[in-house]
C-alpha cells in the first residue's frame, strides 16, 4: 500500500459509462413550500472512474449521490445504471441494487455500535454474493489489529476506515462517499482517502466522492462542480496527486 509514492494514472481503464444521468430533477415538498434540490443534472460516470463532487453547501450534492445509490427517488429525469433505469425501480429492486452493487461511506461512519469492526463488515459480507472475508477487507484499510474492537473503542478515522472496509467487502461496482473526511483532521483524512484511492485503483471500483475540500479534488480522475442543483463545471485532472501529497 505504498501507492502514494507513485504517479497516478490519469484516466480510468475503460471509457464505458456505468451511470448515465439525464435531466435529473428532485423537488422536496415541505408543506406549502417546494425546494428544488436538483434542477436538471446531466452526468456520466465512467466505469473505474474516481470522481470528486465539489459545491457549496445545499447545492444538491448529497441529493444526487443518494439518488445514484438508490436511497432516494428522483422527481424527474432518468438514472441509467448499466442500462437499467433506477428511477423506475421499486423498493425491492433498489434494495437488491444497494445490496449487490453499491458501497456507501458517510460522514458519520454509521457503524452498528453493538458489533465489532469485524462484525460490522460481516453484516455486509453475509448477504453478498462474492464477498471478500471481513479480515481481508479490514486488512485493505490497515485495521487487522483492531478487528475485535467495538466502534466506541475506535477513533473517528479508524471507524471511517471500517466503514470503507464494510463498503468494499462485497466487491461493489460502485463506491459512494459523502464527505467521508468531513469529521476528521487532515492527517486522518489522508489515510482514509488513501484507502479509497487504493480500492479504486486496485479493484477498479467506480467511486464518487463528495467533499467541501478543493484540495481533495486533486486526487480524482475528474472533478465535478455543482451549484444550485446543476452541474456547472467538469474538469478532467491532467495530473492527479496521491492523497499523501495533499495538504490543507
Amino acid at each position, binding site marked *: 500500500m505504498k501507492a502514494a509514492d507513485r504517479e497516478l494514472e490519469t484516466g480510468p481503464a475503460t471509457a464505458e459509462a456505468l451511470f448515465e444521468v439525464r435531466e435529473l430533477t428532485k423537488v422536496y415538498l415541505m408543506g406549502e413550500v417546494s425546494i428544488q434540490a436538483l434542477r436538471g443534472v446531466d452526468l456520466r460516470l465512467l466505469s473505474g472512474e474516481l470522481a470528486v463532487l465539489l459545491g457549496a453547501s445545499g447545492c444538491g450534492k*448529497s441529493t444526487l449521490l*443518494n439518488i445514484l*445509490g438508490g*436511497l*432516494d427517488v428522483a422527481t424527474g429525469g432518468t438514472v441509467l445504471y448499466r442500462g437499467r433505469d433506477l428511477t423506475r425501480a421499486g*423498493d*425491492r429492486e433498489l*434494495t*437488491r*441494487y*444497494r*445490496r*449487490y452493487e*453499491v458501497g*456507501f461511506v*458517510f*460522514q*458519520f461512519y*454509521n457503524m*452498528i*455500535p*453493538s*458489533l*465489532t469492526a469485524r*462484525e460490522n463488515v*460481516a*453484516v*455486509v459480507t*453475509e*448477504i453478498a454474493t462474492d464477498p471478500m472475508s471481513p479480515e481481508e477487507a479490514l486488512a485493505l484499510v490497515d485495521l487487522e489489529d483492531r478487528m*475485535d474492537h*467495538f*466502534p*466506541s473503542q475506535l477513533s473517528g478515522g479508524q471507524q471511517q476506515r471500517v466503514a470503507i472496509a*464494510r463498503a468494499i467487502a462485497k466487491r461493489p461496482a460502485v463506491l459512494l462517499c*459523502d464527505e467521508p473526511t468531513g*469529521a476528521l483532521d487532515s492527517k486522518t483524512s489522508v489515510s482514509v482517502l488513501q484507502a479509497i484511492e487504493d480500492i479504486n485503483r486496485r479493484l477498479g471500483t467506480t467511486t464518487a466522492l463528495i467533499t467541501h475540500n478543493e484540495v481533495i479534488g486533486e486526487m480524482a480522475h475528474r472533478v465535478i462542480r455543482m451549484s444550485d442543483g446543476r452541474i456547472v463545471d467538469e474538469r478532467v485532472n491532467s495530473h492527479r496527486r496521491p492523497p499523501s501529497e495533499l495538504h490543507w
Partner: protein
Amino acid sequence: MRSLRGQVAAIAVVVAAGVMTLIISLITLDALTGTMDRFYRDFRFGQVFADLKRAPEPVAERLREVSGVNQVEIRVRAAVRLEIPGFADPVRGQLLSLPEGRQPEVNRLYLRAGRLPMPERADEVVVSEAFAEAHALEPGDRLKAIIRGGLEELTISGIALSPEFIYQIAPTDLVPDYERYAILWMNRRALAQAYAMEGAFNSVAVTLQAGASEDLVVAELDRILAPYGGVGAHGRDEVLSHRFLTDELDQIRAMATVLPAVFLGVAAFLLHVLMGRIVRRQREQIAVLKAFGYRNTEIALHYCGLTGLVVLVGALAGIALGAWAADGLAGVYREYFRFPEIDFRLRPGVILTGLAVSGGAALLGAIGAVRSAAGLPPAEAMRPPAPERYRRGWLDRSVFGRWLGQPTRIIFRNLARHPFKSSLSVLGVGLAGALLLVGSYQFNAVEHMIDIQYRLVQRMDTHLTFHDPVPERAIAELRHVPGVYHAEGYRAAPVRLAVGARDYQTSILGLDTGSRLRGLFDGNHRPVSLPPDGVLMTRYLADFLGVAPGDRVSVELLEGARRTLEVPLAGTVDEPLGVGVYMERRALNRLIREGPAVNGAWLLVEESRRNELFSRLWEMPRVAGVGMMAEAERGIREHLTDTILVFMGILLLLAGSIAFAVVYNNARIALAERTRELATLRVLGFTRGEIAWILIGEIGILTLAALPVGWLAGTLFAFLLSEAMSVDMYRIPFVVTPWTYAFSAAGVLVASAFSMLLIARRIRDIDMVSALKSAE
C-alpha cells in the same frame, strides 16, 4: 412529545386500569360499609342472638337485667312451607314473630310497600322483598302456608327488608334462592298459637349498651337460656347475612389492594423507562436551560409535571371508568344485598385517594429520570451521552455464536447491553401474563370446583329435611315411595366446636358408612372412610381451629341435653363448598344419647315422576323441606358468575391491555433507539423484512422469556388468590390446567404480535436519508 404519543397513551391506559380497579373497590367498599352501618344503626340490628327450644315470657325480664344489655326482643321463630299459586317447586320459609301490630325493638323492618299486620290479625304477613320480587307478589296477594301440617291462607300486608336478612339465604344453602326461600313476619300471638308457643319464645335478639362486652353478654345469655334448650348465643358474626356481607367486604378489600398495586406498579415501571428516555433525548435543552440559570428544582418540576400530566390523564379516565363500572356492579350488589338503598356515589374522598395513589406511582416512575436530569451538570449535558459499551458475551464464545447471523447478534448484544432494562421488560410482560393466568384460572377453577361438589361430593339429586329426628325406618319407607330409586338418611346436629380460644358454630353431619350419595374425599380426590368414632372435618375448618388429625376437639352439643365432649379429629376432607364436620351416624346418635335416628334424607329420584313425587313428599307431615340439587348447583353457578367471574372478566381485559402496553412500549423505545441503525442496514442493502427481524426478534425473545415468568408469577398469584378468597361459602381450588397456561401464553403472544404489527408499519417508513445526516 408527539412522537411519544403511543407510549404515553399506553401508560395512561395502564394507569387508568389500576385506578379503575381501585375506584371500583373503593366505591363499593364505601357504599356497602356506609349503607350497612346506617341500616344497622337506624333499624337496630341485634348484637347478640340466641335460639332455644322454649322459654316462658318472664325469662325475658332476666335477660333485660343482664349487665350490658340494652334492648331485648323475644320472638317466635319457625320453619314453614309455602305454596305459591302457579309455582310448582317447593318453597321453604322462615316465620318470625312481630309484636302485635308494632315494629320490634330490635331488627326493625324497613317497609318497602304496604304495612305491618294489623293487631290481632292472624292471617296477615309481611314478606321479604327478594321473595316478593321473585314471585311478583304485592300487598293484598295471598299465599298458602303449611303450618304444623295444617294449611293456612295468608294475606300479604307488606313487603319489607330487615337488617338481619340483608343477604337472604336459607341456612343449608350456599347461595340465595329467592324463589324457593322466604322470610315472613307475622303477629306473635298468631304464630305462637300455630306452633304451640303461647306465652313463650324460642329466639331472642338483643342490642348492647355502649362499651358493653359482647362475650360477657353471650356467656350470660347462654347461662340463663341453657335450661330452656338454648343452642348457644352468638354475636353478629354468626348471623348468616352479616357473615356473608363481611366476607364480601374482606374480598373487596383484598382486591382493592392487590390489583391496583399490580397495575400502578407496571405503570410506574413504564414511566420510569419513558422518562429516562425523554431526559436522555433532551440533554441538550436541559443543559441550555441550566446555562441560562434555571435551577435544578425548576427542571425537576418540569419533568415531574410532564409525568404528572400523563398520570393525571390516566387517573381521570380510570376514575370515570371506575365510577361507570361501579355503577354497573351496583346492580349486582343490589340483587344480593338487600338494603333499603345502596348509595353508590363517587365521593371526593375516593377521588382523592385515586389521585393520590396514582400520583404516588407517577412519582415513583419519574424519580429516577428527574434526578438524573436535575443532577446533570450543564457542561456535561452539552456533550452527547457516553457511547454505549458493548461486550462480547458467552454466546459469542460458544460454537453456536460463530454461526449467528449479524442481525441476530445485534439482538443479543442489545439485550445483553441493558440486562436490567431487559429483565424489567421481561418482568412487565410476565406480570401481564400472570394477570391473564389469574383471570382465566378462576374460570376453570370455578368450573372444577362446582364439578367436584356436585359430581363427586354430593351425588344425590334431591334433599329432604325433617322437622324433628325420625327413626331410621323412615328411610326404608322412603325407598318404597314410587319414583324414588335410592334413599339415604343422615343426622345433622348443631354444635359449637372449640379448640383453645377459637370456636366455630356449625353442624355435625352423621353419615352412614358406605354412603353412595355423599362422598368424602381428601385433597387428591381419594375417598376418605368414616372412622368408627371421632370426627372428620373440612380442612379449611381444621386450619381455622388449628387442629391436626389426632388432636382433640371440644364439641358442645347445642341440641337436647347440652353437653360438651372431647372428640378426636380422625382426619380431614377437602371440599370446595361449605364447611362440614362429619361423623358416623350411629356414633353421633350415641353422642346425642338418642336411638338410631335421622333428621334428613338424600334421594335419587326418577326424573319423569319428579313433580308427582314432590307433592307427595310435601304432604308428609314430618317433612320440613324438599330441595333439588340441580337448583342449588344452578344457584351457585349463577352467584359465582355474577360476582367473581364478572370481576375476572374485567381483570382479563385489563391484563390484555397491560400486556399490549408493555410490549408496545418496549417496541417503540427499541424502535426509537435503533432507527439509525436500522436505516443504516437498509442503506447497506437489507430488506425491510430483514431489519424488522432485529426489532421483532428482540421483542420476540423478551416475550418468550416473559412466558415462563408469567406462568410462575401467575401460579403464585393464583395460589395467593385462592388462599385469600377462601371463605366459609367456598374455596376456589388451586388447579391450574395446561389450558390456563396456554391461555396466558396466547394472550401475551397476541398482544405482542399486535404491537409488532403496529411497529412493522413504522419500520416500513424509516427514512434512510435522514438517518445518515446526523451523528446521534
